[in-house]
């Protein structure tokens, strides 16, 4: 039992957990034909059957029930404000299943040349709002109100000690829905993780319909015809948003250190942090000389790399790998799409650079509060 717990603690370390999710993701939500065929061949799409749902939910519930036997697990999962996140995990599994199972079902129907499940023939297949919709709404409303009442009676809202600006808790956490962003603060400075990144997420979400302009697949669940866009969205939503929230909520303890779900939150645990900037790596370690005093010269390696990634790479991609997109989208749409994609990919890239090379900043200009 203890062995199992320490195994869980070990594999829930972001290095391992995140890598496993990253590697597994394209096979579960294939972005292209190759992955799609592997997905079918390995029968990963069995996840989207009733049996698949049963297994996924059962494993999650068994894990939680088993976990609640452990006092460290209990103290973090049963914190009132964390209860919705446990609910969110189950809801995410269920609704991902609900959409994917209908999408695969419709894909199959379309392969057979049959109309999709949502297909209807106007006006014969229309129903009246009164009573067909109104009673569905009424029942949902009553059931949901009952659920809210039970939840509110059963779980008191949290109230802690009165506010004391001179005594900060450890760890100090943002509201749970921002914990993915707070997790990003480990790898990026506040100006990026706290301001620019959220703005980019908002802009990126709003840009979706102006970049994915394929009119096919509107109004019904489907996957096969929109693998790439669905895969990108699901990656951002499930992994970069929700997995990071779960990590930030359950697995980040004092000093924002990592703690496994069955680990005691020891605030005195020491973590040796010897993060270095790219400029230090380049000049001091590789060239064995001092840092140049000129800021631009000092940061030249990072600036050049960032220029290549953001300035040269998109052009190269437009001529090679992403030529199809460039032709389809045109200049400005392509520029927005590629910039957002590159900045999105940089998030996990920076995480790995930190984990394996202790890289702090690619560009570090503390003189101007500009660190990246």
């Amino acid at each position, binding site marked *: 039992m203890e062995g199992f717990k320490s195994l869980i603690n070990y594999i829930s370390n972001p290095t391992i957990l995140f890598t496993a999710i990253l590697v597994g993701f394209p096979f579960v939500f294939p972005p292209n034909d190759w992955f799609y065929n592997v997905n079918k061949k390995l029968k990963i799409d069995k996840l989207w059957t009733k049996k698949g749902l049963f297994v996924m939910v059962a494993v999650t519930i068994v894990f939680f029930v088993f976990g609640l036997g452990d006092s460290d697990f209990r103290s973090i999962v049963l914190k009132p404000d964390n209860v*919705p996140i446990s609910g969110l995990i189950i809801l995410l599994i269920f609704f991902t299943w609900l959409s994917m199972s209908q999408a695969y079902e419709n894909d199959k129907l379309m392969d057979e040349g049959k109309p999709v499940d949502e297909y*209807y023939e106007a006006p014969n297949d229309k129903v009246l709002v009164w009573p067909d919709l109104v009673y569905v709404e009424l029942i*949902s409303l009553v059931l949901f109100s009952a659920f809210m009442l039970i939840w*509110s009676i059963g779980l008191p809202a949290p109230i802690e000690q009165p506010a004391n600006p001179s005594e900060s808790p450890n760890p100090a*956490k943002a509201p749970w829905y921002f914990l993915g962003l707070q997790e990003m603060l480990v790898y990026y400075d506040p100006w990026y993780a706290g301001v620019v990144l959220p703005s980019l997420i908002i802009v990126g979400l709003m840009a979706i319909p102006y970049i994915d302009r394929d009119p096919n697949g509107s109004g019904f669940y489907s996957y096969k015809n929109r693998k790439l866009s*669905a895969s990108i969205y699901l990656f951002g939503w499930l992994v970069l948003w929700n997995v990071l929230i779960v990590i930030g909520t359950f697995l980040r303890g004092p000093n924002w250190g990592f703690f496994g779900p069955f680990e005691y939150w020891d605030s005195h645990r020491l973590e040796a942090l010897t993060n270095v900037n790219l400029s230090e790596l380049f000049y001091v370690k590789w060239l064995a000389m001092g840092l140049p005093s000129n800021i631009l010269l000092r940061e030249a390696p990072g600036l050049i790399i960032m220029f290549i990634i953001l300035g040269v790479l998109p052009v190269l991609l437009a001529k090679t790998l992403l030529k199809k997109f460039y032709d389809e989208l045109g200049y400005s749409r392509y520029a927005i799409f590629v910039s957002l994609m590159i900045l999105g990919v940089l998030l996990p890239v920076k995480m790995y650079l930190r984990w394996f090379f202790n890289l702090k900043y690619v560009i570090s200009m503390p003189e101007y509060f500009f660190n990246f």
Partner: protein
Amino acid sequence: MSEKKSILEKISEGQVWKSIFRGGGVPTTRRQRMMVVLNSVFLHLHPVRLPKHAVKLKFTWCMGGLSFFLFLILTISGILLMFYYRPTIEYAYTDIIDLTEQVPFGIMREIHRWGAHAMVIAVWLHMFRVFMTGSYKPPREFNWSVGVILLVLTLLLSFTGYLLPWDQLAIWAIAVGSNMAGATPFLGSEGPGASLLAIGDVNFITKASDARFGLIGGRFLGEATLLRFYVLHCIGLPFIIMIFMAVHFWRIRKDGGISTPV
């Protein structure tokens, strides 16, 4: 026909009922059922008829409707809470304690807090459903963007409300969040580029004039922050979100109702 009329039928055909609901009688014919929707200010948010998949929970998940319903729950419970809550450092915390300890069976705060969490989740899942059914595609691009704004406003409403109990949980969560504003590029005193906005040695962007100062109404979280967040939470943001909600609902109808396969 000498059939005896039930009480329900009698009431629904009386003058009072007819005057309120425009045309009485139990709606049994197709025409009458259509008129029910057309004659009601609330129901006419809906179209009269829908494609049959639009009433199935497995298609809609009911998340959009639930988000709106939660907004109503939160408005009502919020108004009730406002009767008992004073947004000052002196009273805020004790008023919350009073609410939990003095009011028998008082669960209004619970309804409000858990409802807020539920609304955040419901809005996320609504967005997820809309994406998975490809419903952001033309002609619904703009309404998707309005939806993104509604999502941001939902998070801001929840964020501003988080501070109001004025306990340790509240101020330190808001401290983490509002410190980010101090790092806004150009507009935060610790953001990149802020030192460029200066004439000679005089900086325009200082701790007493930057984005963080504007957000929390001072250099530190205090009386002004609490009032600022309270006003935003109770009046400012609900006002804005209601405008966007009106546009969102109106555009659903104008863009052809719930999305359907072409």
